[in-house]
């Protein structure tokens, strides 16, 4: 195991996992001196009955200070301020966030406002502006993918001023994350597949990106093992309780890894594709992951090869010649996409050309690839990718990912 000349690793979040983890929240809140939490969620999560499960689990243990289910898909400063008002009016003393990325972002934004008594959230944006403990925040993810229950960033949009505020601080880490199998049990196969591939992309990119370290590596290896083992089975059998819990834990491990080692080309091109074409993040990750590995293969093939054992087990590892192990990892990930495509009746896209919206319209027309390649140059995720990227190379990867053909590695400028 390589000890880098220098590394930092941090995940201060308490992780509580289980089939009945939600029932532990009252005691966890009491430990933090809280007894009146505000529940923040969105309409989709509430409609799926997940908030009812949470409320039922909290029952007599705490007084619920309010339930706000109006978090929009894109975080909004107005909603943050409105929920902060609700928190104050109802004399709440903690926040429980139930949902995905935008719910977590909103909850973190509300927490800044109520803890710092902020009138102008902008004053706390950037890195280093927040250094005092905030109010207790309990995160309950409802997908097994984003890892936002263990990340230290929040993005809040000011739609009036057309500004995007980024907050980065260890104090934004939730105090507790609750991984409960009931929260993902009703997730449809198509969503299960893409969020699971999002988690896999965190684990894999976390393993090869430049800020990797021994602890992030160990989290990645465990995550890769669990996600590869369970993603197809839970997509096939949504009510598989053990599989759901394993996926929640795997996604959390992956989140811890990438928030320490950062992410690279897969996220870089994925963010750009999402911004230009509105493709869901998980789909972008699923499609791009094999290409990210191929793109970086000449720089860190040995590192990628180390993923084979946790992914495929000792039999496959032993029977695959050393020089072919990294390629085998790529082909196994392609196979996962293939399997998920079959299980979801074709809804899980393998290539960008297959991504369709609700009306069956192609979401990534081939002629927008240059725009995506260009947009990606402005995204920060390139910094931590092992191999440098430029416009032509971005386009090369995007073209291959659009067609579903392996990357022609001879065309990569080796830096």
């Amino acid at each position, binding site marked *: *195991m390589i000890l880098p000349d*220098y*590394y930092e690793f941090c995940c201060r979040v308490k992780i509580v996992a289980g089939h009945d983890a939600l029932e532990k929240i009252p005691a966890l809140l009491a430990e933090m001196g809280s007894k009146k939490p505000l529940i923040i969620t969105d309409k989709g999560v509430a409609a799926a009955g997940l908030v009812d499960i949470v409320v039922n689990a909290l029952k007599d243990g705490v007084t619920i200070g309010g339930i706000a289910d109006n978090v929009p898909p894109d975080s909004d400063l107005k909603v943050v301020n409105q929920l902060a008002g609700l928190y104050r009016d109802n004399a709440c003393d903690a926040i429980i966030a139930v949902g995905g990325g935008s719910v977590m972002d909103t909850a973190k934004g509300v927490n800044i406002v109520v803890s710092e008594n902020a009138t102008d959230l902008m004053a706390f944006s950037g890195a280093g502006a927040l250094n005092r403990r905030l109010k207790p925040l309990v995160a309950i993810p409802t997908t097994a993918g984003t890892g936002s229950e263990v990340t230290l960033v929040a993005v809040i949009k000011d739609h009036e001023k057309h500004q995007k505020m980024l907050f980065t601080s260890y104090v934004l880490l939730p105090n507790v994350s609750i991984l409960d199998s009931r929260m993902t049990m009703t997730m449809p196969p198509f969503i299960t597949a893409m969020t699971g591939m999002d988690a896999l992309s965190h684990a894999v990119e976390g393993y090869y990106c430049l800020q990797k370290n021994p602890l992030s590596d*160990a989290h990645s290896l*465990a995550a890769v093992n669990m996600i590869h083992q369970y993603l197809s089975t839970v997509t096939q059998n949504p009510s598989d309780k053990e599989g759901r819990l394993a996926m929640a834990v795997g996604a959390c491990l992956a989140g811890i890894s990438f928030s320490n080692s950062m992410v690279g080309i897969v996220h870089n091109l994925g963010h750009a594709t999402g911004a230009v074409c509105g493709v869901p993040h998980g789909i972008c990750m699923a499609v791009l992951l094999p290409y990210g590995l191929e793109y970086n293969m000449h720089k860190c093939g040995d590192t990628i090869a180390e993923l084979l054992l946790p992914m495929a087990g*000792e039999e496959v590892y032993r029977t695959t010649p050393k020089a072919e192990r990294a390629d085998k990892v790529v082909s196994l990930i392609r196979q996962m996409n293939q399997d998920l495509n079959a299980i979801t009746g074709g809804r899980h896209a393998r290539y960008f050309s297959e991504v369709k919206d609700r009306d069956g319209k192609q979401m990534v027309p081939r002629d927008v690839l240059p725009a995506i390649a260009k947009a990606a140059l402005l995204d920060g995720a390139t910094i931590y990718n092992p191999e440098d990227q430029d416009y032509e190379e971005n386009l090369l990867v995007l073209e291959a990912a659009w067609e579903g053909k392996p990357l022609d590695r001879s065309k990569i400028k080796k830096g």
Partner: protein
Amino acid sequence: MDLTNGFAFTCPFKTNSGNKALENLPVELAGLNAFKPLIITSRPLAGCRAISTLKNAFGDSGMTLGIFDGVTETADLSVVEQIRDIFVKGQYDSIIALGGGVVVDVAKIVNLAVSQKVADARQLSPATAIRDPLGPFIVIPTAAATGMETSKYAFLQGKSFVSVHLMPDLVILDPRLTRAKDGKAVAEAGFAAFGRILEADIAPDRNPLMHAYAFTALRFLRENLADAVNKRCNKKASLAVANAVAMSGCVISNTDQNVLHRLGQVFQKIVHVHPGMIIGMCLHPFLDDCMKKDSSLIASLLLPLGGDDKYAAMPEAGRAGEALRDIYEFSYEIYRSLKGKIPRTITEAGIQQYLMNDVMDIINQEPDGAYLRTMIDRVGGGSIKA
């Protein structure tokens, strides 16, 4: 790994490890909203050089530092009170502990006293409730670290404090400070960490989060402990061991499986020997017992200890035996290279009868006292008693 029964895991400290790690201290303190730290250390135990390296790391940051360097092996709550008074009068806002063992125990209890604003630290007791997070607290272990520095435990003169809030916010591992003067100290710290982690990692209730720390630490120890003991100029090996020792504090704070740990603590308390000495002795009989109970858990150790190729090449039925062989070879190599500096039995350690009686009195009060006694008997404790 069986997740059916659920689990909870927490590691509140951040790890900064490597070259010039100390130089980030001003930034790290600011991130904890701290600008005037009090350094708690010991001139004889940490060494003047380590103290000046730490002071120099603040360079031209403009931060005001306080230093209390008078912690001794026999420090008690009156020393804690003395430091509390300095902290309050000097209006410090954070604590940096430099050293290992008692230095950090004292610092943890000072942090408790100043954070909970007690009027007199001598009134603190293990019954003191520790509900809220304490003030900013950074631990900088030296080679004197025992592994408990990063844990939720603090021991002082027979008093034992336990709370997750006692754990540091940050641990800094800097190669300038983690190199030991003698191989014995490294081996003892390494054995202590190895035993504590190994026991937690072969427990049926282990969880994937704790396992990530255990896996990393076990592999670091297996790959580096012998070099750190024998080639003390090898800074990288010492730093890898220091990393593993720091991780062991996180692991021991997240497990109830602590037979080896408790044995080490009892002997440390009564006989004043390093817990690593006893943990090293008891490792083999303990593993023999585990092997009889469930060899599949021992088998899983072959992956962190033997590496990917060795693990994958070994048929499943042979993995537990190979893991045990690996551990025996690993510990034998270290004992052999130290040429008797670390005793392998209680008889060799020459522990006197009256001390063993005191040890046994404590052991007998433990719920699993009968089992712990058999363990002591098997490492030569029985012969002394006879």
